[in-house]
């Protein structure tokens, strides 16, 4: 499923709303998650999962072709941890 299909499915359940309002809602949700992560905050959605940002420390990398050392500065990576209910639903409630 891609974003436009998600919008279409929500629109079908809410015939009283315009499709562009639904688009706006989906984009606002994703935008809020992105903005939170940009400021280093965590986003916790019970039953679904949590988004957070992890820091990768600066290190000395190597150009694999020349073997030359190159400094790699600290960087941040987005991280998602699946929520408990979601994990259980994926496994018919069998795995805790």
């Amino acid at each position, binding site marked *: 499923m891609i974003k436009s299909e998600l919008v279409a499915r*929500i629109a079908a*359940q*809410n015939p009283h709303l315009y499709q562009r309002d639904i688009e706006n809602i989906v984009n606002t949700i*994703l935008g809020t998650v992105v903005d939170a992560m940009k*400021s280093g905050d965590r986003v916790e959605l019970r039953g*679904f999962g949590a988004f957070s940002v992890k820091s990768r420390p600066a290190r000395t990398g190597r150009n694999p072709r020349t073997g030359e050392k190159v400094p790699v500065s600290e960087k941040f990576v*987005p991280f998602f941890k699946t929520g408990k209910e979601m*994990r259980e639903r994926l496994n018919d409630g069998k795995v805790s």
Partner: protein
Amino acid sequence: MGGKTVTRADLCEAVYQKVGLSRSESAELVESVLREIADCLVTGETVKLSSFGTFSVRSKTERIGRNPKTGEEVPILPRRVLVFKPSNVLKTEINGGDASSVQGDD
């Protein structure tokens, strides 16, 4: 840096502020969006959200694990896990970059 936790309530508030709907309807729609994504993933289907990332379900086979405290061997049963692959736009934005300069992202 950071330290705050954003929750459903914050998402509902953002939707309420941006879209001209009531608070309760905003909350319902946030719920619908999350439910729709979750339901889709439970069927095993991948969910691709452009400029955000991709959620997909991976099946893991059984393997032997070890209780790190007792050293005892325990079977880890086959299971399905949810993985999130952030888009290049998201990765760039989180590092303070300009997302509009990211190419080839879906």
